[in-house]
């Protein structure tokens, strides 16, 4: 019984789809079909070109900016004695007083009196 109903529904749906195929007209392309396609293609090409130009300009500007920044940083590095010094030299310069020798004659001088 249930199987019969199911088949009935399936058949009904198929019938509805067939009716739909006939109900949908076969549209004829209008006289301006081709001209409109070309007009839309040209419009899209213009906008694509504009975006392309903008993107190219932005990329060039970004490249130039990174080049300038790179050059600036490298010239700063070269001129600074701090960055050219070795680690030990930099440490010594920074803590010169604390690293000075104690100049003690006897070890007993370190002991509290």
């Amino acid at each position, binding site marked *: 019984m249930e199987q*019969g*109903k199911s088949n*009935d*529904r*399936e058949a*009904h*749906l*198929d*019938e*509805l*789809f*067939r*009716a*739909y*195929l*006939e*109900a*949908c*007209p*076969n*549209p*004829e*392309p*209008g006289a301006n*079909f*081709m001209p*409109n*396609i070309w007009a*839309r*293609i040209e419009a*899209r090409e213009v906008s694509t070109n504009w975006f392309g130009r903008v993107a190219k300009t932005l990329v060039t500007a970004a490249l130039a900016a990174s080049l300038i920044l790179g050059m600036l940083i490298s010239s700063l590095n070269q001129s600074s004695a701090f960055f050219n010094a070795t680690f030990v030299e930099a440490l010594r310069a920074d803590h010169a007083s604390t690293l000075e020798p104690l100049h003690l004659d006897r070890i007993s001088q370190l002991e509290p009196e």
Partner: protein
Amino acid sequence: MLVEFDLIQKAQQGDASAFNEIVSAYRRRIMGTISHVIGRPEDVEDVAQEVFIRLYFSLGQLRTPEVFEPWLYRLTVNASYDYLRKSRRRIESRMADLSEQQVMMADAVAGSRAQHDDSEKRRVRDTVQELLSAVSTEDRILLTLKEVEGLSLKELEKVYNVNENALKVRLFRARQRVIKKMKEVTGPSSLVAKDKEAS
């Protein structure tokens, strides 16, 4: 194939007249498919133009002219999908207005197709479109291509790049959802009545 391979190759190289010939050869078929998929005759030409514009811009990506037709179908499916997605809200709002009477009318029209007139055809279109809104836009297009356009599973396999079994499963589920929707709209009474008539 409605056009020769060398015509496609010429169009790929930027020959505008070759492209025009391709459009002329395929526009009726594409418009027919779009008409069945979207069910809105007033928008068919616009969507078809979009298909050919996409064809123009992506023709260079086509490596083998043998797959031109499935590929053009894929562009058609994608353009129809975009159209349906945009108008989905409108369709959903209309779904709420679908009355049992409309479906009964469509039923009657399906039974006696000889008596069609324009308004009845419109009702059938609206009804099927409403029933198809029970499934996702992707399944709706797939179902239309299979059931209305009559594409074989092999052809659909090429269009979707999906194996036949996966398509069968999707189609079965989509059909079940549409049938469920049909039951909801018409109610069990109409089916009982049909059964009685049959017996």
